[in-house]
């Protein structure tokens, strides 16, 4: 089991970093993914690639994380505190490429304003470069539904981006 973690943790971490808003959240997501892997291992069939199966667990973990954050955001929306999507303790964990980190945070902040499923879809499409067919297969959606969802989400994201650009 430890061998599987050691072999695949880099790929899983890279994928889940697209979802996570902070290094602490990333730790939690990676741990949750591998725990789900352990629990689901008896259900894995040898005729499907292991990494593909593991990525499905990771993307579902990421999607659940978005859903939890959305619920929490709604719950504390009435309280006069900072936006929960805003605080990013990157100052503690300096990035290798600060410009890339700033850009990634900017994109994640825009994506955070979308519904959880749209957010997961565009996170994989824009940040990870996945095709819509691949995303549809991961989440168990039809390709047509995924295309429609992506079109709507992109339109919404464009409006958000343009409003963030305007002074």
């Amino acid at each position, binding site marked *: 089991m430890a061998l599987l973690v050691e072999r695949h943790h880099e790929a899983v971490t*890279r994928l889940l970093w697209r979802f996570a808003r902070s*290094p602490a959240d990333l730790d939690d997501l990676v741990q949750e993914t591998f*725990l789900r892997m352990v629990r689901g291992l*008896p259900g894995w069939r040898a005729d499907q690639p292991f990494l593909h199966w593991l990525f499905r667990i990771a993307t579902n973990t990421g999607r659940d994380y978005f859903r939890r954050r959305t619920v929490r955001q709604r719950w504390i929306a009435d309280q006069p505190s900072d936006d929960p999507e805003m605080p990013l303790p990157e100052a503690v964990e300096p990035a290798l490429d600060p410009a890339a980190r700033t*850009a990634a945070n900017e994109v994640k902040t825009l994506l955070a304003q979308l519904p959880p499923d749209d957010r997961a879809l565009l996170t994989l499409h*824009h*940040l990870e470069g996945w095709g819509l067919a691949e995303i549809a297969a991961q989440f168990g959606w039809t390709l047509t539904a995924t295309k429609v969802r992506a079109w709507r989400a992109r339109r919404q994201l464009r409006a958000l981006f343009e409003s963030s650009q305007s002074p």
Partner: protein
Amino acid sequence: MKNSTRSASDSDWENLLSRARSDAPPPIDLTAVLRAVREAPYSSRSDWFGEFLGLFSSLRAVSACVAGIGLFAVFATWQVWSVLPSLPWAQLIDTTTGGVP
């Protein structure tokens, strides 16, 4: 004018995305992950009940049902065909129509 604004916005967006994609993840606490995985209960499906339940998972159950229905249909048709002349309603048709079905 509007098109040029939109294309400028598109180009800004593409630039932002390409920079964002090159963001590398911070290091994770691998020791904690390994510890959590080692301590997690692992339930292997080695008992007969688990194997039995495994037969009914996902598409395998659907294809097994379809195959079963097909086999049953073939068997039932064959059986009915073999006893058709001795069935009372078949004899009734035979006598009323003079053998013409």
